[in-house]
């Protein structure tokens, strides 16, 4: 199948290095301490953060740092064909773990010992790149909850199809079987906190693809900063100072 046309356009009309449209909104779940929705094209996720609060299960309590927990769920209607999936299947558990570890890298857990932070991400629509979208949504939700973080984490994926590195794969490109590199970075220090790849790729091309994904992360970081700044300005206005 041809994923890049001779004119250099992808199936959804994007250029190889072009990202899908980003859209984010903060504070969409009124009862949560922090929440956000994040859209990358047709992929849409929401994240809600509860905490820091008392640890619910005493045996899990950590005396020197906060306990971070994460649960990833997909809505029944999120995929193209409707499927009834049991809760806590392997894929969800794996993604929950990935998100938790990635977020833990930036949360200053040592400031909140003996407490618990819950991150819940819900996929409303899956069109490739749910992992990245979930991490971006979780970052915004954590910031909205006012949880101390050393930096934000942003994530983006890139692939390699028809001998072309492609940024931000959608579902069709993702399921083509080519390599899919998901990168998460701390934009200030440009340190990598998440790196996953499936399928295979020559070493020197991997470098290019990862570079592309990192550039994508930086673009997401700029957008996330903008959204947070806008929200903070609004809060400032409401305060009337």
């Amino acid at each position: 199948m041809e994923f890049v046309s001779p004119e250099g356009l992808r199936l959804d009309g994007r250029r190889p290095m072009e990202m899908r449209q980003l859209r984010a909104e903060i504070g969409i779940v009124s009862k949560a301490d922090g929440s956000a929705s994040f859209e990358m094209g047709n992929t849409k996720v929401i994240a809600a953060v509860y905490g820091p609060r008392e640890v619910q299960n005493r045996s899990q309590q950590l005396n020197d740092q906060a306990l971070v927990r994460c649960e990833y769920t997909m809505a029944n209607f999120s995929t193209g064909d409707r499927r009834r999936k049991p809760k806590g299947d392997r894929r969800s558990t794996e993604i929950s773990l990935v998100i938790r570890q990635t977020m833990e890298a930036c949360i200053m857990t040592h400031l909140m010992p003996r407490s618990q932070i819950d991150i819940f991400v819900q996929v409303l629509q899956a069109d490739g790149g749910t992992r990245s979208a979930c991490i971006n949504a979780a970052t915004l939700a954590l910031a909205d909850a006012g949880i101390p973080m050393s930096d934000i984490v942003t994530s983006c994926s890139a692939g390699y199809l028809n001998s072309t590195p492609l940024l931000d794969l959608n579902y069709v490109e993702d399921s083509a079987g080519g390599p899919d590199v998901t990168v998460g970075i701390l934009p200030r220090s440009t340190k990598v906190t998440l790196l996953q790849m499936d399928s295979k790729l020559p070493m020197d091309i991997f470098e290019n693809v990862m570079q592309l994904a990192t550039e994508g992360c930086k673009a997401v970081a700029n957008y996330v900063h903008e959204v947070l700044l806008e929200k903070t300005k609004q809060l400032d206005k409401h305060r009337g100072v």
Partner: protein
Amino acid sequence: MVGLSIGEKHFIEGGIAQNLRTDGRKRLVYRPIQIETGVIPQANGSARVRMGGTEVIASVKAELGRPSSLQPDKGKVFINVDCSPTAAPIFEGRGGEELSSELSGALQICLLGGKSGAGAGIDLSSLSIVGGKICWDLYIDGLVVSADGNLLDALGAAIKAALSNTAIPKVNVAAGASSDEQPEVDISDEEFLQFDTSAVPVIITLTKVGREYIVDATPEEESHMDSAISISVNRQRNLCGLTKRGSAGLDPSVILDMVSVGKHVSEELMNKLDSEIAAAEAREEE
């Protein structure tokens, strides 16, 4: 779930007795309702409903299936509700299952009628394509994104909006197939059929606090209700379904009174929903 002191409880109860609730509403007034349609492009129809802090999403997906042998000339409708952990941490893992099944059960009773499909808000025979062979299976999924009381009414409204947003592709059946084999069908991707949703009922939950009933209760009010009755009423003011929740017993005459109050409220709600849905559809088309 909601921790209230004795003083707060008295305050809420006293307010309800005097027809002034803590958020300034009267007993039989709903919070503002916001409806957005077409929120899930992958579904045949979808809607998001916000009532105060409650937010639910409903989606309708249609798939081709085989009708059951008991009702060969009718389609099938499945309703399923999930409570997302984003709404409350107690829904984490399997924690939301109890509430989910309670809500899906109540919605099934209120919207689908009895086992035979009689009295259903959706005309099941309109889902039939070839009698006994092919029909549409409608999967209605509800998702609670944010819980701030009165989930059932919000889900009912979301499903109603999603159904009126639903477009089902037109199916052409290949002629000339013999009667004992599965006929070949061709799903059109240009022509769509709209649903007749005028018969879909609205759901009204009346919560009994003390001696009075209130609609659209907040979690604080729900937390010390005696019992609640959910009724579904259609345009013809027929009662389509009724469920009682809560532990306290109710006097039969009280139930009848609640039903008649609910019917009265339903008309207003129905009109409000219809105009909101029409406005949402108009916005989507722009």
